[in-house]
């Protein structure tokens, strides 16, 4: 709900949660004190006196902090939140983006473990196929076909790439996913790499997304330290080394062949296809390139199995999609909803 930023949620020990929108720094103390009472008596007195002095000595008229309260029963909030289904944005609002322990505590890397220890690559591709996942970058190419093409190539060296060069004007879904769920993207990439046989990969992230670059780099470091990336992942034979390549301000580098040229250190000029990246990509080796959101939904699909993802959506477009609402509208932000033939009017 980006139209209410900055957004704060207070969750008490008993599970009750209170939300506030359009918060300003000076209201921070009032919000904290509304929910958490200071313990030592001296501190209580201190807080009371300083609040009194604030009221007397400052010109600011004191408005109750409750004006910021966001009630989920408010019409516009309910409409925004209710119809969303969180797959790529699972645990939205609950986990710290770069806290690996929190991610692990919320089923993090369980899907990767399942793929490495239980399923064989063909079973993984079959599951992706049954779920009907199509590329979330916009072209909508069936993901299982791309993965199969790279997997069936007999070359020894293969690469995996994440296309984080979101250039579509008005689109910021991938930015949100990279900043908020970096581990989920890495897990999705690891699953894909294991399936197709890649041992090295790159996340190409736009220069205009510095926070995303920082968080993904931090996430990669932490994963390496815990044996979730690098050599012998989860103590298996599977190794994968990922690194971030920052874009340099060229819109065309969102196109996969231009993107690969950029990673190779050349001018980002697109080339004709065939040959497709699955056949000859980075440095002429078979390369799997998928969009950020495509990788983000893979762990959920593996964990929830079979047909759950494809239980929503249209005949040809299954599952959920994150949409960005921006421009001349009342309430901007990001929503993740099932792909249904619904008019844009309904999304307000």
């Amino acid at each position, binding site marked *: 709900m980006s*139209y209410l*930023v*900055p*957004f704060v949620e207070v*969750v008490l020990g008993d599970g009750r949660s209170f939300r506030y929108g359009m918060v300003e720094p000076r209201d921070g103390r009032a919000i904290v004190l509304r929910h958490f009472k200071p313990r030592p008596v001296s501190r209580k007195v201190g807080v009371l006196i300083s609040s009194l002095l604030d009221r007397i000595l400052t010109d600011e008229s004191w408005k109750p902090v409750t004006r910021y309260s966001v009630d989920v029963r408010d019409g516009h909030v309910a409409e925004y939140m209710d119809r969303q289904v969180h797959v790529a944005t699972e645990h939205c609002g609950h986990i710290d983006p770069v806290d690996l322990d929190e991610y692990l505590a919320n089923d993090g890397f369980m899907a990767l473990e399942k793929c490495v220890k239980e399923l064989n690559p063909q079973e993984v591709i079959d599951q992706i196929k049954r779920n009907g996942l199509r590329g979330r970058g916009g072209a909508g190419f069936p993901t299982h076909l791309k993965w199969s093409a790279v997997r069936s190539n007999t070359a020894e060296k293969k690469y995996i790439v994440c296309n984080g060069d979101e250039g579509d004007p008005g689109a910021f879904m991938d930015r949100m996913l990279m900043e908020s769920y970096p581990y989920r993207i890495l897990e999705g990439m690891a699953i894909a790499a294991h399936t197709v046989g890649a041992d090295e990969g790159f996340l190409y992230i736009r220069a205009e997304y510095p926070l995303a670059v920082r968080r993904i780099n931090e996430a990669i470091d932490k994963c390496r330290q815990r044996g979730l990336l690098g050599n012998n992942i989860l103590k298996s034979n599977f190794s994968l080394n990922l690194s971030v390549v920052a874009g340099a301000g060229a819109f065309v580098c969102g196109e996969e062949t231009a993107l690969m040229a950029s990673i*190779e*250190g050349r*001018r980002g000029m697109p080339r004709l296809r065939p040959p497709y990246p699955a056949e000859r990509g980075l440095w002429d080796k078979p390369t799997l390139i998928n969009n950020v959101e495509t990788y983000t939904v893979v762990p959920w699909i593996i964990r929830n199995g079979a047909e759950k993802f494809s239980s929503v959506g249209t005949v040809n477009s299954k599952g959920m999609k994150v949409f960005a609402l*921006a*421009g001349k509208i009342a309430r901007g932000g990001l929503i993740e909803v099932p792909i249904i033939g619904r008019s844009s009017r309904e999304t307000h």
Partner: protein
Amino acid sequence: MAANPDELLHLVDSDRIDMNELDLTFVDEIISEIGTSAEKVLQILQALQRHYGYLPKEELQRVCELTDITPASIVGVSSFYDQFRHRPSGRHMIRVCIGTACHVKGGQRVYDAFKRYLNIPDTEDTDADRLFTIEKVACLGCCMLAPAIQIDDVVYGHLSGEKVPTVLGDFLEQQGSIVKQSAQQLGVKPGEELGEIRVCLDSSCIAGGSAKVY
């Protein structure tokens, strides 16, 4: 052997305004960190861009001396990608978004307002004090905050001509300290959890000021 680097590099318009003595140790360090193969050209140029604010000619020549990167490659790559500058920039970079959402909400007017306020002539992009350089960029990904700008790594949203002085003042002020409130002040015993305060910290929220709220 390749053509004389000087002949090719003169095509790159990189007049040095700051005439400090050459310090090539940074270039040497970057190269030893990133590598010397030809494909590392983008990463090396990006590191130079970040450090100097532009691509100084002498540093580029040093790169050619120490790596497999050719002058042709440097000219080709640095002229293709918008991020690279060949003229010195001010201390801070103002990027005004002119993506579709910002465009319809008046991004061009915001750009003009900044140029007017900073007295930057039409043919230039940096103010006289060399504090700010302004440029237009494609989408920053903060479209619901249109018109949006980015000064260095800080995003500001809902801009208008009138807000220019406030935004610049706020940015320069922000270069100072960040205040943090500690749990000790509430008398929390170690290991005890009263609850959790969750503050959204993605780029759009930070642009709205959530970092200060945190």
